């Protein structure tokens, strides 16, 4: 094993290479100069994408992680560079996305003196990181980076921040490169962390312990007459989509998905009733209220999915499978829970569940599926169907608002990691960075669509320069209705049509903007033109903008008012 004497900055980059990080998203500054210097020397071994703003570098690392399942990496300087990461960190945290955020900080001799560009970023990010570190000695740096990567992707994944003072970056120590198994930190068996995703011997122990619960779960499934599977992002993270479909077939159960769970059961499947919740389909929400057994896998019973928690699935026993014990009984009381990795638990469960027939229930659940008129009106769901017709397998990122819900409802997602969206935090401005990260994570370099609104897009359009410079194939589809549509929708429904500060009658001209960044811009106001423009853009595989001019009063339906039972729709 070769030993090297390196400074902290070089050790950091070597550790990123150890973890097989292909691309780092970041922005340089005073407190990370040594790191950028070492990055420069290793440009042949690691890639860096310079964004226009740290926030979007953070979202890009997150999008990279969500699309690929690998750990994203983002690098920023101290002070404002670090605080600009708060939104992406919180976004990644809410959606359990594995991202390692690395920040520089002022030298330790200046820490605590309110020095230039000093910010207590580890203190600030405690509530929104899975864990964070302030590295005080270069001797601890390599192991800290390895731990950070392990923590970010183990158990329920999440963001980890490593704050490295400049003096630690410059201090030298011996570095021994590691690879493979050796990269997994040797954590004490006592640590709850080491129990999160059991392997080897502890997996056998886990199986024995889980047995009584698995038997009870199989019993619940055997006794159910109207079983329903409710799946979420945990299934994607675990890679349990095949087991999930097998369980649905075995139990003869329909499936509903959360926003984060779209794609776990393909929209093309007869079992899939669509998304549930505030903007869920009639079929999904009504099935939820009628089922007698709810098999919840990798979900956290979010208020947006539940509506009124007390009136949620009133006739059902709840069987909850999740890796995070803290999600059990948090929002909804369960009849039975199994704590564990979804794939492991479903595999074990499948060996105990016999074939069931619930033809009548399946038919009843399916009967509520909406069928839309096949007209040529230029409205959101037609645009999304047209996109899917061109590229059914394509990765689609969104920002937050009406366009996001329309995408969730009407783009028929076929596989996991196909939809990249900010679910928990609902971060407007997430989309362009995330789409860029998703595109960079694809070794085949296929185009990624970003469906965004004019409101959201104005929060991140600064990154057009980044996708233009690097030629990152993001097709930006702007749903331009001249308003902050989702807020306007609530103002229409709940605030007497008083459109306070939501009308966006102020540009910019997105075509001139595209031109300014050297991108192709196409403005369309009918379906035929959209189809042609999108097909052309997909074929070209270059970054571009397609602006769709939509009606200001278009609303997202169905809708359930917040806190209402999820089968009492206020909009149909």
């Amino acid at each position, binding site marked *: 094993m070769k030993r090297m004497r390196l400074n902290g900055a070089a050790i950091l980059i070597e550790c990123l290479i150890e973890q097989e990080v292909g691309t780092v998203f970041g922005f340089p500054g005073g407190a990370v100069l040594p790191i950028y210097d070492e990055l420069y020397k290793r440009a042949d071994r690691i890639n860096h994408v310079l964004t226009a703003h740290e926030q979007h570098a953070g979202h890009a690392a997150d999008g990279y992680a969500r699309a690929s399942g690998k750990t994203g990496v983002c690098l920023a300087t101290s002070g404002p560079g670090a605080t600009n990461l708060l939104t992406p960190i919180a976004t990644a945290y809410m959606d359990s996305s594995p991202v390692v955020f690395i920040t520089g900080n002022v030298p330790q001799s200046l820490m605590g003196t309110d020095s230039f560009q000093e910010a207590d970023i*580890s*203190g600030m990010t*405690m*509530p929104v990181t*899975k*864990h964070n570190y*302030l590295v005080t000695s270069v001797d601890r740096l390599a192991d800290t980076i390895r731990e950070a990567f392990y*923590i970010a992707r183990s158990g329920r994944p999440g963001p980890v921040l490593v704050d490295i003072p400049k003096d630690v970056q410059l201090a030298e120590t011996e570095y021994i490169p590691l690879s493979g198994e050796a990269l997994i930190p040797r954590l*004490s068996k*006592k*640590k*709850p*962390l080491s*129990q999160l995703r059991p392997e080897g011997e502890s997996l056998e122990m886990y199986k024995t*312990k*889980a047995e009584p*619960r698995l038997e009870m779960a199989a019993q619940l499934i055997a006794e159910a007459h109207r079983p329903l599977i409710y799946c979420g992002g945990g299934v994607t993270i675990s890679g349990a989509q095949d087991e999930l479909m097998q369980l649905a077939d075995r139990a003869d159960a329909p499936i509903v998905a959360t926003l984060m769970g779209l794609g776990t059961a393909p929209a093309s499947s007869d079992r899939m009733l669509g998304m549930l919740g505030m903007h869920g389909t009639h079929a999904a929400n009504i099935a939820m209220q009628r089922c007698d057994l709810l098999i919840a896998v990798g979900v956290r019973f979010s208020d947006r999915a539940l509506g009124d928690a007390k009136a949620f699935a009133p006739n059902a026993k709840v069987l909850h499978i999740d890796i*995070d*014990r*803290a999600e*059990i*009984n*948090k929002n909804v009381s369960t009849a039975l829970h199994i*704590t564990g990795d979804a794939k492991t638990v479903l595999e074990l469960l499948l060996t105990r569940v016999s074939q069931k027939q619930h033809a009548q229930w399946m038919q009843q659940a399916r009967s509520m599926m909406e069928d839309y008129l096949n007209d040529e009106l230029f409205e959101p769901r037609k645009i999304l169907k047209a996109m899917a017709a061109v590229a059914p397998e394509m990765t689609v990122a969104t920002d937050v608002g009406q366009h996001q819900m329309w995408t969730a409802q009407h783009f028929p997602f076929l596989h996991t990691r196909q939809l990249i969206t900010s679910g928990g935090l609902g971060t407007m401005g997430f989309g362009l960075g995330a789409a860029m990260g998703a595109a960079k994570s694809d070794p085949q370099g296929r185009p990624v669509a970003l469906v965004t609104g004019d409101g959201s897009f104005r929060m991140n359009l600064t990154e057009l320069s980044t996708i233009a410079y690097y030629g990152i194939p993001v097709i930006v589809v702007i749903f331009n209705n001249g308003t902050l549509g989702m807020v306007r929708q609530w103002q229409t429904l709940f605030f007497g049509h008083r459109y306070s500060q939501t009308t966006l009658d102020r540009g910019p001209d997105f075509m001139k903007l595209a031109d300014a960044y050297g991108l192709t811009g196409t403005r369309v106001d009918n379906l035929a033109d959209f189809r042609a423009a999108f097909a052309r853009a997909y074929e070209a595989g270059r970054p571009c903008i397609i602006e769709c001019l939509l009606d200001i009063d278009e609303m997202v339906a169905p809708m359930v008012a917040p806190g209402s039972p999820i089968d009492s729709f206020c909009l149909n």
Partner: protein
Amino acid sequence: MYINKDNQQRYTVGVLVDNEPGVLSRVSGLFFRRGFNIDSLAVGTTHDPEVSRITIVIKGDEQKVEQLVQQLYKLICVQKVQVMQSRNSVERQLLLVKVKADVTAREGLMRLVDIFKAKVLDVTKNSMVLQITGDNDKIDALMGLLEDYGILELVRTGVVALERGDDVMTSDIFD
């Protein structure tokens, strides 16, 4: 455990954590974020210098406390969490109090010191510093009585607690 006026129970929670900078902030921050009011908090290293023990007294209902325990386990620095029951645990805290004590009051105070097995740490013409250890009720009782004399200054360590018997804390995810 007792039921207080708000019909919430009082819980004593023992937490074993890595002895590292920032750990107290992680743990207390979690209590704040999840809407728990900390009645008392005590922290110190254990016989293992790499492990600290935090004892926290909070009020809440059973479901909320269970949620809190599970949230605590998500902190990387947390090794073990135990909710202690008063019937099978011992708890103590220490109180130092400076009380008005002129020549007329001294006699009465000394009687209280006797009854409560307190200690006199300092005496001047006008005041006394007393030390007392005990459970919450005992300390509250003494404080009530001392109010008649006039409390000048007061500090308490917060509750520390251990379970009786041979039981040890477990961190089983099937709990």
